[in-house]
């Protein structure tokens, strides 16, 4: 377990990484237990509309154009954002790691074909593709998760391929080949664990960008119509922006805090997992 201890000692050396971790744990705590502490349904009309934050201690963040509790919306939204971010990232990692591993390990024609497809996906404007796909396949939690992973796997594939290309030439892989280990075992048990560090770092960035993409989609009205998400709230608040800007401002701040936390943690992980580069 001393590897973990080493890692933790290196991670906590950086103030910004610790700030990110604390923020992230806070957001996760809100997402996990928050919904039990606020009004059960963020869509319920509970108070008079256009209540400013601080006006009524029972609704500390005020109410929106219809009198829905903004605090409740933000708390429920944290669950939606994190869930979509994590699920989309997990799916993108699954596809990206498989594609990258096959392309990088076997090289030759599988590499050519897979990389052409990856490049194709990287040429199409990402967010525009996401918008078109969600609009055509009807917005729902599942379609949004699939679409976000569909636009984010190419980056993973390229990263994993590059790692595999360099690792497969190493002696430990050669010796696995010599003792007759199966290719599946070489790929998953020998090479993959050795490129986990950059994959982990990339994951936190992917969750962050998935959350940003989801907020953009739901702001455009392409969110799951049954879920209160931060982007949806900004879209609702936009109608009353000139008089009651807090309605859009508050959920936006929630997005910034969450995405910032994920980026800081990603940077901290990067520094802690690549000690050679820490003086850069």
């Amino acid at each position, binding site marked *: 377990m001393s590897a973990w201890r080493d890692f933790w000692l290196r991670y906590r050396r950086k103030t910004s990484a610790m700030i990110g971790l604390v923020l992230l744990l806070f957001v996760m705590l809100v997402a996990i237990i928050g919904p039990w502490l606020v009004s059960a349904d963020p869509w319920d009309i509970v108070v008079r509309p256009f209540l400013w934050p601080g006006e009524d201690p029972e609704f500390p963040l005020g109410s929106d154009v219809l009198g829905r509790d903004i605090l409740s919306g933000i708390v429920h939204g944290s669950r939606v954002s994190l869930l979509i971010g994590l699920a989309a990232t997990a799916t993108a990692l699954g596809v990206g790691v498989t594609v990258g591993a096959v392309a990088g390990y076997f090289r030759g024609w599988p590499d050519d074909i897979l990389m052409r497809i990856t490049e194709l996906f990287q040429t199409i404007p990402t967010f*525009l593709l996401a918008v078109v796909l969600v609009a055509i396949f009807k917005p729902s939690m599942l379609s949004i998760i699939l679409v976000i992973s569909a636009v984010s796997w190419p980056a993973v594939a390229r990263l994993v391929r590059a790692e595999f290309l360099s690792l497969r030439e190493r002696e430990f892989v050669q010796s696995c080949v010599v003792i007759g280990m199966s290719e599946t075992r070489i790929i998953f048990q020998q090479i993959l664990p050795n490129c986990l560090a950059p994959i982990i770092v990339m994951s936190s960035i992917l969750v962050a960008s998935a959350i940003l993409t989801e907020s953009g989609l739901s702001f455009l009205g392409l969110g799951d119509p049954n879920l209160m998400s931060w982007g949806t709230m900004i879209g609702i608040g936009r109608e009353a922006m*000139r008089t009651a800007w807090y309605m*859009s401002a508050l959920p936006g701040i929630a*997005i910034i805090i969450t*995405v910032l936390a994920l980026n800081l943690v990603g940077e901290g992980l990067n520094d802690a997992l690549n000690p050679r580069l820490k003086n850069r």
Partner: protein
Amino acid sequence: MQGATQGAGRNRIVRFLVRRSAQAGLTLLAIAVLNFVIVHLAPGDAIDVLAGEFGGADAQYLDKLRRSYGLDQPIYVQLFQYLFNVVQLNLGFSFRNNMPVFDLIMTRLPATLLLMVASMLLSFTAGLLLGVFSARRVNTFADDAVSVLALLCYATPLFWFGLMAIVLFTVKLNLLPGNGMYTIGSNLGWFAATLDVARHLVLPACSLALFHMAVYTRLMRASMLEVYGLDYIRTARAKGLSQRRIAFRHVLPNAILPMVTMLGLQVGSLLGGAVLVETVFGWPGLGRLAFDAILQRDHNLLIGILLLGSALVVIANLITDLLYAWLDPRIEVA
């Protein structure tokens, strides 16, 4: 002698251009196939969407419509028909706008290009300056401050920033317009009209530039620090050159190359950002058109915008490659 090498150089560039254009054409064709697949994976065909718009129609009439659009043909015939149309720049018809999709896109393209070019210049210049500023003061308070700023820009949704900018600069301070591209109903001379558009451009261009300004800042800082570590910089220092001269004449020109690569990569994400920013600011470009197409469930138009958007990215990548070869003679345009 010099003429001969110049001629050879030109030949090389022409060959490079021809090969890259052919590749670009293939890429676009593949994207068109992908578009076709997306449309056909979607539940229901174009006629179903139309029927839904009209509140239903009898089955016989719908079948007749399907035949007239060739939707009863086998799938590969439809694919070839679609590709054939795309090659002829026929992207279908937008029933909602009563106009061919291609023409519709072309009327909206200039506004989007203006917005994109403005925010590219803005993010590139600001990122360059901030990156150089940061790298020259590495590990000081100023450097940290720039890093924090960049991190915040990374984390801010650009549509939210746009909304807040409208609240501050349009509603509260009444400094800049926050809606549209020009003042409606005004009859201005060309100079005043240009100024009017420029004033309308400020907020949307800044909103769109925010994210990439952060990207360029961090890229430029890292790139400068890398070049600072090279031997020839030590030589320059040993010669007794001033810090300013070293930074701007020796480090910057070599540190700028990764930034140029980024320019090409930026175009795709700018187009996506344009959908959000143009929606927020009512900017009459492609992004706004895409948003209207979502509301009107005009899938023909959406797919057309996606295809043309991809074409823009392909062209931008081609230009970046050329620019790169011109900036860095070490790179073979082969």
